[in-house]
């Protein structure tokens, strides 16, 4: 199968697509565009898999490749460290925060947000802003300051008791020059 990407054709298809409101033939334009998108995305996924295999062959610890116009990163996602709860008392407090979602009592929950906020402040609860939905279940999270842990590690020569390196699944990401750089 030959796939040629003709940017003029893409423009025309994009223009033709708007005809779907009045003619069913315009559906073909959208089908062609989406098919092209799917094939290209599949190709990129295969390229990423190949990049991962080839990179790991060069060195199992490879992290990035930088050329004139492309940046390839092989990175894990999520926090690099986590707290072992049985030793949380040993972890320097400045290395992490703890946040929680609390359930608002029935009598208060139906009040306007300002009143709920006032209630929480009155009982000594500092309220952090979150985009989550209803706070039905208590959800307490430890948020590690990775940079602070790195500084600790550099100064003391080891991680503090209670802080553990998190296993991370790595994936390849590819960026063009000019896109935001990644700090790993």
């Amino acid at each position, binding site marked *: 199968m030959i796939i040629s990407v003709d940017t003029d054709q893409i423009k025309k298809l994009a223009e033709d697509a708007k005809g779907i409101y009045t003619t069913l033939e315009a559906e073909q334009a959208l089908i062609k565009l989406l098919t092209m998108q799917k094939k290209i995305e599949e190709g990129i996924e295969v390229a990423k898999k190949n990049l991962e295999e080839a990179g790991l062959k060069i060195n199992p*610890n490879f*992290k990035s490749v930088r050329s004139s116009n492309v940046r390839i*990163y092989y990175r894990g996602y999520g926090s690099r460290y986590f707290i072992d709860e049985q030793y949380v008392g040993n972890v320097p407090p400045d290395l992490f925060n703890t946040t929680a979602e609390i359930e608002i009592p029935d009598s208060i929950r139906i009040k306007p947000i300002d009143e709920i906020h006032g209630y929480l402040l009155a009982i000594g609860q500092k309220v952090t802003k979150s985009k989550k939905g209803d706070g039905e279940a208590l959800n307490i999270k430890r948020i590690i300051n990775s940079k602070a842990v790195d500084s600790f590690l550099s100064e003391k020569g080891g991680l503090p008791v209670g802080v553990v390196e998190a296993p991370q699944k790595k994936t390849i990401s590819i960026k063009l020059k000019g896109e935001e750089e990644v700090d790993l």
Partner: protein
Amino acid sequence: MTQVFRASHTVLSLWTSGRWQEAINYYLKYSQYDTQAMIEGRELHKKWEGDVKATGCLPPEFGGARLAWPSTEQKIVIHLTEWLDLVGIIDCYEELVQELSGGRIHEYKSGVISSTTYARGHQVGIYATLLLMTGKHPKQAYLWHYNQHLKTTDLSIVWIDEQMIRDAMEWVEGAAWEMHSYMMQNDLYRRLEVAKA
């Protein structure tokens, strides 16, 4: 006689990141201000130099692969302008890597900062310039990072091209001129002469 500023990646990095006093201390070779990280880094570099010289292979921390005609701790100084020298010590350079039809720079890093961060900087461009000016043909750089606290390693690969070299030289000239002017205005070169004496 024109006072010449000897620019290196280390001193200019300190200067451009706002660590002006550290940059001056480094330039004036005030070693009493060396941090534990700097001392550990130097010791590791010495060990790695010894590893390559003894085996012709990368140090074990970096996988131990055989190298193609490696040279170690190669110091290069080039005279860029009447007031500016550029100096660098290249940890390891493979003269001829077959698949590249050219050379490969190996730069070692220790501490907590990953190789990816170093790959974004100008060090590879500077080292490529130094090598080109001595008749070499570097095509690529391997930036090896060893975190001696966690005993982990990571690698970033950087392709060398003309734009990177231009960007690096622009950065060198800009930062060096700033620091050079500061040192002239504050008569700091005299301290270097006193220290030498």
